[in-house]
C-alpha cells in the first residue's frame, strides 16, 4: 500500500490527490484482479493501474479547476531545509509541476522506482523505442524546468 501511495504522491505532488489516486488504484486492482494472467507481472500491472489512476485524478482535478491547498504545501514551502539534498527536492518538486502528467510518470517510474526501459515499456504499454523517446523528452523537459526554477531563486 505504501508503495502505491509513494508512486501517486511522486507523480501528483499533492497529498489529497495522491490519496485519491491510491484509493482508485486499490479499487481498480481489486476489481480487475481476474484479468491478471501472469502473477509474476503483478508489480508492473499494479504500477500501470497506479499511473492510470494518477492520470485520471489529475485530469479530474484539472476539469474542476480546483487545487486543494493543504497544510503540507505550506510546510514544504516554509520548511527549514537542513541538507542540500532537501534543497534539491524542493527544486525538483517545483520543476515537476511544470511538466505534464505523462512526463512526471515516466520520470518517477525510472528515477524513483528504478524501473529499466523494458519494464517501463510493460508498465506503460508502449514499445521500448517509444519509452526511450518519451524518457528523453521528459528528461530534457525536467532539465529545462529545473533551470527555470533555479534561475527564479
Amino acid at each position, binding site marked *: *500500500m*505504501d508503495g502505491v*501511495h*509513494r508512486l501517486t*504522491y*511522486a507523480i501528483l505532488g499533492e*497529498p489529497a490527490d*495522491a*490519496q485519491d489516486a*491510491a*484509493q482508485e488504484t*486499490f*479499487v*481498480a486492482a*481489486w*476489481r480487475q484482479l481476474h484479468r491478471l494472467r501472469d502473477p509474476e507481472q503483478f508489480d508492473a500491472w499494479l504500477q500501470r493501474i497506479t499511473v*492510470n*489512476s494518477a*492520470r*485520471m485524478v489529475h485530469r479530474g482535478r484539472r*476539469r474542476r479547476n480546483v487545487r486543494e491547498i493543504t497544510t*503540507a504545501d505550506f*510546510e*514544504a514551502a516554509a*520548511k*527549514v*531545509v*537542513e*541538507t*542540500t*539534498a*532537501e*534543497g*534539491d*527536492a*524542493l*527544486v*525538483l*518538486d517545483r520543476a515537476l509541476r511544470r511538466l*505534464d502528467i*505523462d512526463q512526471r510518470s515516466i*520520470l*518517477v517510474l525510472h*528515477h*524513483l522506482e*528504478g524501473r529499466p526501459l523494458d519494464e517501463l515499456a510493460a508498465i*506503460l*504499454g*508502449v*514499445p521500448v*523505442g*517509444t519509452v526511450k*523517446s*518519451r524518457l528523453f*523528452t521528459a528528461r530534457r523537459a*525536467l*532539465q529545462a524546468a*529545473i533551470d527555470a526554477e*533555479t534561475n527564479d*531563486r
Partner: protein
Amino acid sequence: MTEMPLEGAWNDDRIAAAFVARDRWRPLASTLVSPTFDRLREPPMRFRAAWLRPAVALAATLLIAVVAVFGSFSYASHRLIRPSPATTGGPRSSVTAAPSTPTSMPSDRAGTVLGLPIISVADAIAVRDAGIEDRELAVRGWYTPTTIAIFGCPIILHQVLPVQLGCGDQFVWLTQDREAIQRTVGGTTEFVPPKGPAIHPSFDELGGMWPTFALRLCGPSCAPHPTSIVAIGHFDDRRASFCDANVRSQCQDRFVVDRVDSVEGRRLDLNVADTRGGDRVWTLDDIDRLDPLEPTDGRLSIQVANGRDKSLGIEPTLASDPAWSKRSAVWLVRDLVGGRLVTRVIADGASQVFELRSDGTLASHIDCRDRFCQFPAPTASPS
C-alpha cells in the same frame, strides 16, 4: 532559511536522490485503508450502470411507444425523416445498450492495427466506462451508412465538434452485432435502437465525407445495410469540456473516429480530407516528408482546412493564436504516438508546427525560421 540546492549538473543519481528526499515530505496515508474498504463494499459504477441502463431503455421505449401512438394521429402529415418526398416515419430512440451480450464477430478476424489490438464494441464500452483511458482504440463493429436527410430534430446553434451529437447523429451507431438499425417498410424509413452494445461514432475528423466514402466503397447494395468496419478512435475527447454541462457526459462518451482502417475487411488508405482545396503551398507529399517531432507508431489522418473557420472548431485551444488562426490553409496531421493521439497543426508553407497532446495542451511550438528544421521546399506556388 532554505538552503540552496547542490551545485553542478543534475545527473540521474542526483535526480534519484532528490526524489527520495522529496518522498520524505509525503504525509502518512493513515486514512487510506478504511475509505478504500468502504469503496470496495460499494457496487461498482459499471455494475450499477448495467442494471440502470435496461431500466432507462425500458422507460425510453415506453415513452417512445406513447409518442408514436400520438404521433400517428397528430403528426400524420409531418415528415420527420424523408429519404424521398414519398416517405414518412420518425426516429425511435437513441439509448445505448449495455455491453452484456457476447461478440458476434468471428474470433479468427481478431488482430492488430498500428500496434493496437482490435477490440469489440462491448470491450470498447468497458474501457470507456472504466473512465481511465483516452487512448486510441481500434474497434471492430457494424456501421450503417445513412443515405437520407433527417429533419425534425432541434438545431444546435453552438455544436461542439466533433463530440456533441447533432441533428441525426443519434441514429448513427457502431454496433457490436450485425443489426439493422435503419429499415424501410412500405416507403417509410425508420430507425430502431440497437439491441446489443453500441456506441455513437463521430466521423467529423475525417472531413465529413466518410458516409459518402463508405457508400462508394461497398456500392449501392451496401446501403443501408450494416457494414463491418474497423475504426481507430477515442472516447473522452478533450473537446467534451467545451460542451454544456447537461450534455458533457454524452460528449465524453462519443467515439471520435480518427481513422477508418478497413471496410468489409478491405484495408483503406490513409484518411485524407481536403476541406480547403485551391491555393496552398505544400502538397500531401510535402507533408509526408516532414520529419516528425518524435517517433510515431503510425499516421491516422491528414486534413487541410481553413484556419479562419473550420479549423477553429477542430482545435479550439489554438483559436486565439494568430500564427495559425489567420492562415487560409493549415494542415492537421494526426499521428499515433505511444498509443495516444498527437495532433500537429502546420501552417501551410510557414515552417511553424504546433504539436498538441491528446489532452489538448500545447506540447511544442516550433518556429523553423530561427533554427534548422527538415521542412521541404515548396513544390507549388500559391495561386
